[in-house]
């Protein structure tokens, strides 16, 4: 993610340029949406969370410190929105039909879907804290430091949470018959 570019876009937003904010939305809505989707397992909820996250970002743009990565700051806000949402509903929900599969090959689709569905179910079995570190590390490719900044926890805690979450995830998948 181009830090220089994001800072420029933020500056333009603060100068009243809504097109600049729209560019930010188009650039980051997909990763924010996917993180929310993997945390909630519900497409509609993920879109609602994405919408309120970007609204919060817009409202707090003046507080963004350009010394830090915009993406990490955006993620921090998104994560707080996800947490607020999860607190308002039951923490653990079974996989439901709102999960979308994008594959079009019917043969591969069936095998891939089974494995993908098992992985998604396993991820959903993790507690939100554990789920978050897995998603931020494995899907958003964030460093321990960035994850710590987003979750407001020390790097050491990020590592121990990540390592134990992996272990637990492994156990869930082995239990489901996955070859690990």
């Amino acid at each position: 993610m181009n830090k220089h570019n994001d800072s420029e876009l933020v500056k333009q937003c603060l100068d009243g340029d809504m097109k600049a904010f729209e560019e930010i939305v188009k650039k980051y809505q997909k990763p924010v949406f996917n993180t929310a989707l993997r945390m909630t397992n519900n497409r509609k909820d993920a879109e609602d969370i994405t919408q309120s996250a970007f609204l919060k970002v817009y409202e707090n743009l003046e507080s963004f410190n350009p010394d830090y990565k915009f993406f990490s700051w955006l993620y921090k806000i998104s994560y707080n929105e996800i947490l607020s949402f999860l607190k308002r509903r039951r923490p653990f929900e079974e996989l439901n039909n709102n999960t979308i599969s994008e594959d079009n090959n019917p043969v591969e689709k069936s095998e891939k879907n089974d494995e993908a569905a098992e992985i998604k179910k396993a991820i959903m079995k993790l507690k939100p804290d554990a789920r978050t570190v897995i998603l931020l590390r494995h899907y958003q490719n964030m460093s321990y430091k960035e994850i710590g900044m987003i979750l407001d926890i020390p790097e050491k805690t990020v590592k121990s949470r990540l390592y134990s979450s992996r272990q637990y995830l492994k156990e869930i998948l082995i239990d489901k018959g996955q070859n690990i």
Partner: protein
Amino acid sequence: MISEKQMELINREIDGVNSAAESEELKKIMAENPEAKAYYDSLEELSNKLGTLEDVEPSPHLTKHIMNSIPAPKTSRAEKKGFFKSLFSVPQYVFKPQYASVFAGGLVFGLVLFFVITSTINPTGIDLGDIAGTLISRDKKQDFENANSFKIHTSEAYGRVDFKQSKELVLVEINLRTNKELELLFEFDSFDISFNSFKQFQKKNNGLAINSRYVKFTNNGDNKYLFLFNSLTQNEKTFNFKMMSQGRTVMEKSISVKSQAK
């Protein structure tokens, strides 16, 4: 047996953050410790499986929804500076009689036109002016057509829900009698509908809760409610109605409202 330090080295290797020296050290450990090697292999397999999950595309309308929810552009910093500067500048006014008479004439004409127009409007339909908090101005009438309705008849509740629609709005009128406190929920698609305003006729606590996808309230006894929703699209609108008693659904109904042509 895998030590804590070895576990850390293995996890860091999976995350690609080991130095060259640390990676070498790990290779030696795994050559001598089959348990450590097995642990590394299983973590690598896990990481590969997690990598098979593909990103999902959000709805193509999401950007539009997000931008629509953003309030009016902030006053730019340049404009803010200009505003403060203007507070300290001294305005100069020069009276010119010919402009005064033009202004007065225009004002009179405008007032006459306003009264002529408002007195000739023959409003039909429902007066929304007394719905608290409505975003529709009091003098703007809406021609509502009956769209759908259903009756409520359970052991706990009796009543009727009527849906009316105009070109821009959907009005839901609920006449209800319950013999205990029940929770009522209207769910809808935020792409097609957004909440506008609400009125209840008997002043009682109603636990009203609203978000982009539902309105929820409680009823105990007799009451009448009006809910106003904005029609955002020309699509058929679907409301999912639920009535619950202590978390148990006692009635559920899906209602469609076809759009009135704009």
